[in-house]
């Protein structure tokens, strides 16, 4: 259990439990990483920080609005100051604004694109110099199957996630010579707070969605965390600009 031994990793959006950021942080901690976890929800984040520290892992928790450029720089700087370098960035923070196209306000649109795409651009932009100084690194960007398939009520979310997909490839191409790998991860339906909210808001629709998964079930956040782990680890040393789909067969159909 030492794939991430002494690797320094930033994970954004780590406060929600159940959540992909939370599960990734816990898995990374198990595998020996030193962590910087961020979220806009400081109360939730403090609880996660405590849980991770209790496992014996070194962890620094920072409040972060991932849309704020200066805050990104502060997170990177604090990481390097505390741990000496940066090896891994997991751009996980995200929200889902789900509604039919004709119901979108400009405010909805801007919020969805900012939190899910601008954030990832900023993260990649700010992290690369620190990774370059560290001799290289791995960036894992949380995209979605919604980037690849049209789904009703998922248009702007899908647009943002599709942006993440192509951004990841460009980062890979632009920074391969710096030793930086960058990949996008495409989960399908996973049992997280985003799904819990969707289930609460529209139970029939949600049940119908779950029945569509060929596996017969939604995924567990741990299953997505395992994919992040692989992409972040040295075992993925020749994997860059790739799209890893983890969806129980949802879009193979």
């Amino acid at each position, binding site marked *: *259990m*030492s*794939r991430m031994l002494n690797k320094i990793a930033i994970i954004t959006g780590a406060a929600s439990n159940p959540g992909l950021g939370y599960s990734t942080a816990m898995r990374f901690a198990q595998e020996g990483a030193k962590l910087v976890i961020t979220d806009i929800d400081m109360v939730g984040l403090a609880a996660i920080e405590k849980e991770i520290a209790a496992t014996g892992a070194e962890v620094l928790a920072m409040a972060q609005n991932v849309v704020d450029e200066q805050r990104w720089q502060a997170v990177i700087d604090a990481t390097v100051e505390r741990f000496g370098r940066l090896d891994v960035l997991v751009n996980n923070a995200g929200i889902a604004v789900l509604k039919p196209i004709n119901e979108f306000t400009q405010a909805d649109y801007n919020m969805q694109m900012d939190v899910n795409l601008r954030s990832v651009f900023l993260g990649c932009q700010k992290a690369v110099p620190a990774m370059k100084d560290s001799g290289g690194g791995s960036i894992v960007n949380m995209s979605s199957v919604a980037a690849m398939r049209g789904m009703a009520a998922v248009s702007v979310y899908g647009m943002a996630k599709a942006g993440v997909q192509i951004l990841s*490839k*460009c980062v*890979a*191409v632009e920074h*391969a*010579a710096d030793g930086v790998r960058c990949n996008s991860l495409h989960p*399908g339906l*996973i049992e997280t707070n985003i799904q819990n909210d969707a289930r609460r808001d529209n139970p029939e629709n949600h049940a119908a969605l779950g029945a569509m998964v*060929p*596996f*017969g079930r939604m*995924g*567990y956040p741990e*299953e*997505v965390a*395992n*994919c992040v*782990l*692989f992409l972040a*680890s040295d*075992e*993925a*040393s*020749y*994997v*860059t*600009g*790739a*799209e*890893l*789909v*983890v*969806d*129980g*067969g949802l*879009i*193979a*159909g």
Partner: protein
Amino acid sequence: MAFDFTDEVVLITGAGAGLGYGCATAFADAGAKLVVTDISQEALDRVVQELQRSGAEVLGLLKDVSDSADVDAMLKAIIAHYGRLDIAVNNAGIATPLQEFHEVSEAQFDRVMAVNLKGVWLCMQAEIRQMLKQGRGRIVNMASATSRNTYPNASPYVTSKFAVAGLTRTVAMEYANRDIRINAICPGNVATPLVVSLVEDLSVLATKHAMNRLGTPEEVANGVLFLASDLSSFSTGSLLEVDGGWNAT
């Protein structure tokens, strides 16, 4: 290697050289019980000896995956020896020399399709019949970066690899609710005997990849082991590029 496949029965076709050999040694290091096949007796004997010397339990079978009788006999031998098959890596594949499309002979086309596509088809059918009896199985097919990117002058190979990707995805859908996970690995250029036989100057190949180098068999094997392991437990019908950024461009 951080993977653990202790006591799992793993089949790798075309394990006598290149990526198949790399996978065999990786699975052996991870504690698996191996079945290795090849069409060359010499290559097969060599890999069996090396694996046994490293302490692995290994069954070697001289088989041509394009021959349905051979494939049926292969599964029978696996079950007779080990009683089950947990993981199959359908790796055996060939390429014909680089040449313009209009110069390719029908025989060349047929042979490449027979091994690279029908071989995977036949092996998957035999493997899945067994895995259905077991109620569990994992299959990793050797696709290619050229399952999505193209490669001029390699039309039979590219066609076969596009097809392997489609075969992987559609068959994965059929068995997704029966604990049989099927995915494909898409390697970029690696200095295997197959690649070296096609291209004199490997440094030219390196420029296809954002990382500006060829991959190693170990790097590809890491991806195969990932797809065969519980780390990828929610993935089926997926294609994993291990190509140093080729597919990104």
